[in-house]
Structure formats: C-alpha cells, structure tokens
C-alpha cells in the first residue's frame, strides 16, 4: 500500500466517523428533521473518488453503528447504507463524469432510495411515521453535495 493510499483510507474512515457523530449532535427542533445524512454522503463521495478503498463492508459497518447510536432496529441503516453503496459502485463510472449539479441529482436519487429503505423497514417494524418532513434529508443532502465534493477534494488534493 502506498502512503497516499494509506492517508486516503484514514481520511475515509475519519470522515465517515465524523458523519456518524454529527448524526446525533443535538440540533434545534426546527432543524432536526432537515439533518442531512453526512455519513452516507461521505460514503458516496469516497466510492465515487476512490472506489478501490471504499468497499461495501465498511459502509455496512457504518450503517450498523448508526443503528446502535440511534437505538433503532439493528440492521435498518446497515441495509440502507449497503444498498446505496452498491448502487453507487455500479454507477460510479458514469457518475464521476457528471457535472456537479447533475451529480447532485443522482445523489438525490441515492438518498431517496436510502430513505425509502428506512421508511419501509420502519413500517415493517411498526414505527411508521408518514409525515412529509421525513423526506427532507433527501433534499438537504442533495443541496449539500457540492459542498461535500469541494471539502473532499480539498482534503484529498495533497494525496492525489
């Protein structure tokens, strides 16, 4: 493993871990439903930029840890994370060619899939909340995507 590969791997782990911590940081009530899924956005970013180090297993583990942090049914976020990671891997060659707004739209689609999985498994386990505002993170995540890309590119510029 080259040193640059190692720093990249480290950055990947650190960014996903930071996303997980930010998933439970208290926010004001009006902002809470809009909270973007930063951990998932980080996973998508790394799959698009360095698919060789961002595999499915780590995405699954991150999802599982999110389940534990939030006290949800075990496996719920894990399933969403691994599905999104898989789709991102399959579409990765195309998606990295897209201009940023186009890419944000594709990310929005991935986030919608993720939230659909959560919504669906919520319903199956009897926690169904059907309000429209549970879909807000899809929008906020897509709007945040250009910033994620900018931040990620700044971080990895050195090791490129």
């Amino acid at each position, binding site marked *: 493993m080259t040193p640059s590969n190692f720093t990249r791997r480290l950055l990947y782990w650190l960014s996903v871990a930071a996303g*997980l*911590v930010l998933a*439970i*940081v*208290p*926010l004001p*009530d009006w902002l*809470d*439903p809009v*909270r973007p899924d930063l951990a998932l956005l980080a996973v998508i970013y790394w799959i698009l930029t360095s*698919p*060789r180090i961002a*595999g*499915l*297993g780590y995405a*699954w583990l991150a*999802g*599982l*840890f999110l389940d*534990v*942090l*939030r*006290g*949800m*049914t*075990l*496996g*719920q976020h*894990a*399933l969403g994370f*691994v*599905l999104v*990671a*898989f789709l991102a*891997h*399959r579409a*990765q*060659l195309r998606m990295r060619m897209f201009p940023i707004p186009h890419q944000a739209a594709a990310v929005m689609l991935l986030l919608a899939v993720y939230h659909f999985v959560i919504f669906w*498994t919520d319903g*199956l*386990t*009897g*926690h169904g*909340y059907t*309000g429209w505002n*549970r879909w807000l993170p899809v929008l906020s995540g897509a709007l945040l995507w250009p910033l994620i890309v900018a931040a990620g590119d700044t971080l990895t510029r050195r090791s490129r």
Partner: protein
Amino acid sequence: MVELSHDSRPIIGRGPPLGATFLTLALASIGLMVADTRYNQLAQVREWLSAAAYPVQVAVDLPFRAWDWLTGSFADRSRLRQENLELTARLRLANLQLQRFAALEDENRRLRDMRENSAGIADRVLVASILNVDLDPFRHRVLLDKGAADGVFKGQAVLDAEGIFGQVAQVHAETAEVILISDAEHAIPVQSNRSGLRTIAVGTGDSNQLSLPFVTVESDLKAGDLLISTGIGGVFPRGYPVAEVTRVERTPAATFALVDARPTARLDRNREVLLVWFNPPAAPLEPAPDPAASTAAAPSAAPATQPAAAPAPASAATGEAAPATATTPEAPR
C-alpha cells in the same frame, strides 16, 4: 470491443464479486432486523455494541455539559444571592407544608393498609440526567446517563418534578433509552382526578399533546381536569399527575369524544429526571363489584407495559375501554 467492468476495485485481491458481497451483507442486515424485532435475540449483541457507542454519545454530550457548567460557575454573585434568598423562602414554605404532609402521609398509609393496597407508591428514586443526543426526530426518545450498572430495568417509570415523563424502553450498561409519554407508540392508563373516570392516554408525537381516544361521548370529563396515573399495569406508580385535559369535543353521532390533554411533565425542556422504584400492585387494585369489570380494566392497561407492541393499544382498547369507562362510576376511589 473492450468493455469496461463496473467493478473498479483492484483485480488482484479483489475478493468476492460486488454483487455477492452486496447480497451477503443485505441478507445479514435483514437477518439482524428479524432477529431483533421478531425474536428479541440480540440483547447481548446490542449491549456490546452500545458499549462501543457510549463514548461517542458522551463525547457529543460533553460540550453542552461543559457549557452548562461554565455558565453555572461564572454566574455573578448578586444573582446567586437572589436565587439563594428565593430558594430559602421556598424551602421554608415547603417545610411548613411538609409538616402537615408527614402526618397526612402516615394517615394515608394506615388507611391504605387497612384496604390492603399500599403498593404502587414510589419508595426509591434516582436522579438521572438526559444526554444531549438526538436519537430520531420523529420518535420521542431520550438517552439517560444511568444504565444497568445503576440498577435501571426495562419498563421502569421515569418522572420529573411536574409529573410522569416516560418509561425505560431499553437498558444498556451505562445508558438507558426512555420512551416519553408523548411518543406515538406509547399509551398510559390514567384516571380523572375529579370524576374518577379511567381511560388511556396515548402519545401523539407532539410533546405538548396526548390524546384520549377511548372516552365515550357521555363520560364525565371536561377541559381542565387533571389526569393522574392509576398504577394499573404495574409500570407507573399510582397517583402522579400525567396531563391536564385541554379540549373535549363531543359529536352526538360518534361513540367516542375527541379529547386532548397537555402533559404536565416538561417533556421537551428537562435535563434532570427521576427513575422510580416502587412495589408494583400484585393484583388488580380495585375489587370491582362484578368480575367482568375487573377483567375489562386489566387488558386496557396492558399496552403501557410494552411500548414496542405498537398495534396493542388500538386492538386492546377499542373493545375493552368502553366497558372500563362505563364501570368507573361504581368504583370511585
């Protein structure tokens, strides 16, 4: 023609194909979900994993706690003096009331002993503080900093200074997850302090509102009535305030009235809560005149003991609550 593979991982040491990895992990997560919800097999696994999550949760909570401590320790002297004076005055007043209360409590216990139901009154409490951690925007759950190590158990009642707060839904080693009475999956048996009417208060997902879906149109309940806990079901101690009725809407054509209540506990603003230990009542509290009434009252209280059983309140209470409310006039407390 050269075809690019979707799989852009290194060719050497690539491991199993992407699709196979995905399938394995997806099936693993589905298996986890089934084992967790249907069979409750994962208590031990969850405990280990939550031990790993604990440092993260504490780390998130720490800055907020530090800020509280800072603002507390740099409070200026005159404000502290003022506060001290106020507290002394309040303590004097409370002590005065307490002198009378001690005698009353004694008398009350004697009378209750005569009726052989002194159970259901809180006898030990533990102060716990809520960790500054957002679990889920759409579920009313909070994390306490006390867990199995402090003797907290699943289903334990949680109170604050103003009334009933919730119950423990999950216990970890150092933390415990509490489901608030306002959570849409929670139901608590209550009783009107004025008329003695017994019913169930169900959470709505709004921390300022409970709903009483099983009050018949002709039952004796009006806005301003205080609802207290009944102790039926054995989860909550008896006689603590739960909510105040804010709205009663009766449509003559309907079977049930539309009743809303506001929780007396400060569900969204509290930092400190009390974990309560008490002797759960062994049998149904009231020896009701006819056996049908006592069997009707018990299952209607059952949903509150199991917050996870979501469909229970609806299925159990629609049938049973109507006879239960009908019998209450014969069994005043």
